[in-house]
């Protein structure tokens, strides 16, 4: 974009100026309509005056009828312009709102998991609705009222100057205070509005978590405590809103007072001038009429300032998202997009989350088509290890290769498109079961879906549902049992027919019999496909070509099941302890 060429530092408004430029046609048309409708309104009193003159001078009924009709006509014309003003300016503001929301959401989609690790969902929800509304108010009604105010102001000023430059000068003195006050108070409005918007985010996030965690809250009877907590948040929100309201309640009368003081000054000094004969009385009277026209714009100015500052605060909040660069994205330059064979190589890979080292030198080569079992204690780094395959977190150069290509040189979508995961926590969307399975492969046929479901031993459950694969599940799949969710996730992973398949503890909530069935079915799926199976249960990894035992971010044992059992290390211990119960039985 041309922003690159301009050396000026980016301001908060860069985000919307490009939209304003895009819709400048609407803006210009809107401006013209605003000027026209306001001018017409100013003409109406003039026609009234003509009609009065006619009455005074005994004009005919038909003459009067003409003017009366002209008056109605002008009113209609002015109404038409008002209509067009809204149709253009407000219309444009809705477009800007919609476009900007799209831009933010699109940007959110590119941000990396590490961003979401520290961001609250409620905060983003607030920004996408509440803050955008504030921005829209600034762009739509804000611009509209500002223009009307300016037009009225300029017209009134012009008439005043025409009537008496001298009186105007008296009035103008205090008028210079307007921008000063608007600026001072404006900054205060900005700070307070910012606090309100930030707290609205907190409030939204609190409600979001409360509802998402409703089962925990109910089972531990935390309802009353939650209400009390929410009360304190809501009370604070009230307080912050009052801070702003107090300012607003002060600003409006202040501006009104100022506007009235203009009249006062004009009255006193103007009066003196009249007495000294410098200004005719009639001029003074007419002058007042125009001064009174300034009172409303003064009040409106306060409103516009508040709209502007609120919008600006929200814009800054929104910009914080837009300025966040995705940590993970396609590197510039030639990228690898080819078909993946599934050869994976870790070369002394080290990885830390914000300074805490989780993987400490992983060396590992997996030949295409092999099945790898990964075991290790909770928190040893298994999930982290596989998530790096999809570059969910940044991987240093030269430490992870797929098909001999550094993972950073793979095009992200090509990389992720060919590796498929059944994640440890099976996340489902509120869609039909079929659509959830189809998630990884848009083009999958119904048969493919059913085959995948059958492999995951899900089909017989689905058959018991009246709507079969069309059965809708709730958010996160809440209307399914734990095992059903997991099996849907497995089916989703295999239907994509990837080059590399990762099953992360994917059968932990499935009973032994079903698990055995899935393992049997998987054999054909795993054939010719690199796969990594993470599990705490030996039974799931036993058949793997090679099993890795991970501890504290290092691979401390590897080999086939039999080899490892023979070795008598951690794996053998694990194996024994899983059999302990039975051994006790035998005694």
């Amino acid at each position, binding site marked *: 974009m041309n922003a690159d060429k301009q050396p000026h530092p980016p301001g908060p408004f860069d985000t919307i100026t490009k939209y304003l430029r895009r819709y400048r046609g609407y803006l210009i048309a809107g401006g013209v309509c605003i000027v026209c409708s306001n001018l017409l309104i100013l003409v109406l009193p003039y026609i*009234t005056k003509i*009609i009065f003159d006619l009455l005074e001078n005994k004009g005919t*009924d038909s003459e009067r*009828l003409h003017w009366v*009709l002209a*008056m109605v006509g002008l009113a209609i014309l*002015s*109404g038409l312009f008002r*209509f067009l003003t*809204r149709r253009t300016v*407000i219309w444009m503001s809705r477009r800007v709102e919609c476009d900007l*929301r799209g831009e933010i959401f*699109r940007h*959110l989609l590119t941000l990396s*998991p590490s961003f979401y*690790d*520290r961001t609250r*969902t409620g905060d*983003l*929800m607030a920004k996408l609705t*509440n803050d955008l509304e504030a921005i829209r108010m600034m762009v739509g009604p804000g611009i509209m009222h500002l223009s009307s105010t300016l037009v009225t102001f300029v017209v009134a000023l012009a008439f005043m100057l025409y009537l008496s430059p001298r009186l105007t000068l008296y009035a103008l003195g205090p008028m210079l205070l307007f921008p000063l006050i608007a600026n001072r108070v404006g900054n205060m409005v900005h700070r307070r509005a910012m606090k309100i918007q930030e707290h609205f985010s907190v409030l939204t996030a609190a*409600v979001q978590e409360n*509802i*998402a*965690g409703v*089962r925990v*809250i*109910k*089972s*531990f*009877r*935390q*309802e009353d405590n939650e*209400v*009390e907590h929410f009360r304190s948040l*809501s*009370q604070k929100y009230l307080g912050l809103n009052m801070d702003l*309201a*107090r300012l607003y309640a002060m600003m409006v009368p202040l501006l009104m*007072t100022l506007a009235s003081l203009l*009249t*006062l000054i004009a009255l006193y000094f103007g*009066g003196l001038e009249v*007495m000294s004969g410098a200004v005719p009385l009639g001029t003074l009277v007419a002058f007042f009429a125009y001064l009174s026209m300034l009172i409303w714009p003064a009040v409106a100015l306060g409103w516009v300032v508040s709209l502007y500052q609120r919008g600006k605060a929200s814009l800054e909040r929104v910009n914080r998202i837009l300025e966040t660069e995705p940590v993970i994205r396609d590197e510039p330059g030639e990228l690898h997009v080819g078909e993946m064979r599934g050869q994976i190589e870790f070369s002394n890979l080290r990885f830390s989350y914000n300074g*805490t080292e989780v993987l400490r030198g992983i060396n590992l080569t997996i030949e295409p088509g092999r099945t790898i079992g990964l075991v290790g204690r*909770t928190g040893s780094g298994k*999930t982290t290890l596989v998530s790096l395959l999809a570059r*969910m977190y940044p991987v240093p150069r030269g430490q992870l290769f797929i098909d001999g290509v550094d993972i950073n040189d793979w095009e992200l979508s090509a990389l*992720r498109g060919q590796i498929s995961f059944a994640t440890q926590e099976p*996340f489902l969307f509120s869609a039909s079961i079929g659509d959830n399975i189809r998630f990884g492969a848009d083009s999958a046929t119904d048969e493919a879906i059913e085959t995948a479901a059958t492999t995951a031993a899900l089909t017989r459950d689905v058959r018991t549902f009246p709507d079969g694969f069309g059965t809708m599940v*709730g958010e996160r799949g809440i*209307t399914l049992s734990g095992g059903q969710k997991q099996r849907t996730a497995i089916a989703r992973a295999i239907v994509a027919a990837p080059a590399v398949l990762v099953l992360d503890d994917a059968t932990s909530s499935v*009973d*032994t019999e079903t698990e055995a069935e899935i393992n049997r079915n998987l054999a054909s799926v795993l054939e010719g496909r690199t796969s990594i199976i993470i599990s705490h249960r030996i039974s799931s990894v036993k058949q793997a070509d090679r099993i890795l035992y991970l501890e504290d971010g290092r691979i401390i044992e590897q080999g086939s099941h039999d080899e490892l*059992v023979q070795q008598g290390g951690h794996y053998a211990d*694990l*194996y024994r302890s899983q059999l302990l*119960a*039975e051994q006790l039985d*035998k005694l």
Partner: protein
Amino acid sequence: MSDVNNYHEEEVLGKAYDARLMKRLLTYIRPYRRWLLLAVVFLLLGSLFQISFAFITQIAIDEYIGSGDQAGLLRMALIFLVAVILASGAAYAQLYITQWLGQKVLHDIRMQVFAHLQSLRLSYFDKNPVGRLVTRVTSDVNVLNEMFSSGVVAVIGDLFMLALIVGALLYYNWKLALITFVVLPLLVLATFLFRAKVRRIYREVRTRVARLNAFVQEHITGIRLLQLFVRENHTFDEFNDINRDLRSVHFRGIYYYAIFFPTVEIIGALSLALLLYYGGVQINEATLTFGELVAFIHLVERFYRPIRDLSEKYNILQASMASSERIFALLDTVPADGGGDGNHSRSFKGGISLEKVWFAYKPDEWVLKDVSFTVEPGEKVALVGATGAGKTSLVSLLYRFYDYQRGSMKLDGVELTDWSLGRLRSHLGLVLQDVFMFTGDYAGNIRLRDQRISDDDVKRALHRVGFDRFLETLPDGIHTEVQERGATLSTGQKQLLSFARALAFDPDILILDEATSSVDTETELLIQKALDELLKDRTSIVIAHRLSTIEKADKIVVLHHGEVREIGTHNELIQQPGIYQTLYRMQYQKPAGQEPSPAAKSK
């Protein structure tokens, strides 16, 4: 279609009865009616002072400037100054009170909605996306802001003014007054047409905003999955549809009020025109003086000012009504019944009995069929069964998250429905299959907001689940931050925390639903040891797929497709052919014909 199939669509609300809605909305102001009155008084005072400006100017010009009385002019200027200050003071007081009033009322409504939400039954949350409910509590309530903060007071003020002016008009010249009113039916008609259109729009806006929030909520929580499956573009398209849909509703709305407001102005001009024409006729007939007409027209202009204001407020009112409909629909949702009076003074023993319990989430899709078994006080009972057999559902029934349709379920000899909900749940402690972590710290996730649980209790519970080795590495110990949903924890760690949570609450009956499914075996054995001691005389229900965790149970209940198939101890059940025996064989031995039992091999 079942209601789950309409998951993303909100129910269509019936015809709106504005009067009833309005009456209900106004009840929220009742506690503050004195303040409301005060605000109206200040408003009227303010307008009075405003009007006085004109009078003062008038007098100053006519009496003092004309006669060259400088001292008099100064006096008038000072009076003017006083009037300005008074007007500003009144305006400040009025604005402050109305804003305060509005915020207060909003706070009250927000609290009511939130509190009511806490009382609703779980099935309500199954049916409503999180984002939609969030919208109700936050932005739907905020829509009411304008109505309560400026709307009500201004409307009262405007109506008051209007009444005064109408009286004055009729008093001055009733014939001309009637001519002025001739156009009023037009105004009523315009308002009527506008109302119907615009209400529909606002209703749609509210549902679209809720839909947008629901979409964002869901897809932000699922963002990792989206990215793993390269669904960004597809998701964006879906988002765009919703986003544009909202925009197009707004577009239609703009159209209507872009017509409505000018229409009101035009009607005003029309009435002025009529007045000027017929007033002229009357003047020519000499039934009206010129001065009278001028005065009358001034009044008529004042007459249209509150009407214009009112039409603006009418728009705000429509928006408020549309969102209050949704809010009231939520408030009218019947809460989960709080159960009986829960007057069980005798000591709690902890037996559970089920007799011919039938349960379905949706009519006629039975999940539990004719389930009967008992859990004696102090007994440890294991629930076993294939996935989807109905184990979790059974626990939900015990918690009265859902109510069974037939049969009877008793805790401590008292039917569940006769327990007060709070008392019932206070005896139970549950490790949920789906773990959930809150933003906060470790301690906060264990004790939740229950201040009776001390830091030491928290540490003890963490110790019991073998979390010590992680705790040591944390910078701030149990006060280390936890992110939303425990995003920076491993799944096993989350499960351990969720386990510790149940232990910290020290319940009479402990229920473990797959509590260690994602935990490594070493830790699992450690927990089991701790539990052996902890559960010694405590009733407990354990659901697990790994049989090792349940072998020591006093009783094992095997559930299959929602029916109880086998009941007995481990030793009894492995002797008899059946589901349990098969499961057991699967886990520890290969079926006949394959390699010999690994147990035999390893020693």
